[in-house]
């Protein structure tokens, strides 16, 4: 891979400053969400990891050069984009798994609640339904 070409397209100082400002805003927002309890620590880990990795790639030229070489991109910005997309994909899959787990938990809770309500309704009617009569 032509590293000289990669070095030509490394982020400029201006771009690094802009990236730094955005990273600080993102970090502050995440920390605020964590502090207010709107975001749980276990769900924030991937976002924080993404922020740290992308920031390291932007601010440290050797890191971005290595990543670009590994991915085979000529323009480092493409490597950053791919890295960002990878993190987004990972976060989406992680959230989907969490949703699947929650769906089952909600279904179980709903079933149990429905059964409890049925039992309560039958008690308040003043008697037991035939269903509740024990085996002879």
């Amino acid at each position, binding site marked *: 891979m032509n590293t000289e070409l990669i070095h030509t397209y490394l982020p400029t100082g201006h771009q690094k400053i802009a990236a730094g400002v955005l990273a600080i805003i993102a970090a502050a927002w995440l920390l605020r969400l964590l502090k207010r309890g709107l975001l749980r620590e276990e769900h924030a880990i991937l976002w924080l990891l993404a922020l740290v990795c992308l920031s390291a790639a932007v601010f440290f030229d050797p890191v971005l050069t290595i990543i670009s070489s590994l991915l085979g991109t000529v323009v480092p910005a493409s490597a950053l984009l791919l890295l960002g997309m990878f993190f987004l994909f990972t976060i989406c899959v992680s959230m989907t798994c969490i949703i699947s787990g929650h*769906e*089952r938990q909600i*279904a179980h809770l*709903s*079933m*149990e*609640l*429905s*059964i409890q*309500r*049925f039992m309560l309704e039958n008690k308040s009617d003043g008697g037991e*339904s*035939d*269903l*509740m009569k*024990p*085996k002879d």
Partner: protein
Amino acid sequence: MALENPHEYRILLIIPAWNEERTIGHLLQRLQSLSIPNLQVLVIDDGSTDQTRLRCQQGGISVLTQVTNLGYGYALQTGYRMARQYNFDVVLQMDGDGQHDPESIPTILQPVLLNEADVCIGSRALSSVSYPMPLARRMGQRVFSWMLKRLCGLEIHDPTSGFQALNQKALRLYLSDEFPGDYPDTNMLLYLNLHGVSIKEAPATFRINEAGKSMHSGFLKPLYYIYKMSLSMLLITLKFKRTRKALSGL
């Protein structure tokens, strides 16, 4: 048809129903004309927005209303939980849309009561009364029947039938997390068979859905069903092989 040894068992008939006010009343009347001792009926109203619950109450049938619409599979599983809670020996399940003929109940129950099988499936394919099915559905049924035979050697002509009788051995497995919330069909037969449950088929009469609506109707739903069923069967087979391999190493 008179059942042998019906008095020895407590039987729970579960009828999951969602917005079936037009058919549930008639179905319950037909059920009441059956004389099966120790048969108790429980309608699982899956969050209906019509008068399904009222029709059941007017018919004097126990009805459990879900706090929210959870789907066919979870409605069935709520019924299974009730069966376990009240120590029923045998569970029977049928649809609330009038498709399953109550006259076929004794035929489906018999093999389970006689311990000839843990699960008995009411099969329209074995019935002398023909049931008109769209070509696509018939082909789909044949494909899943073939897949079932290839994966576990079980030959079931009507693997998507929801008209079933099962004993406590099968009930324990149906209460597992493996039981899907939407389409518990061929995949669950595979699951049961791999876990040593014996399954039999018996002829049953099916009628055309009186409301004219099916949970497999439309274009996207059948496609989703094919995807879900195929993936589920593959995963059940892979999980079982992994579990068996892990256990054999112990």
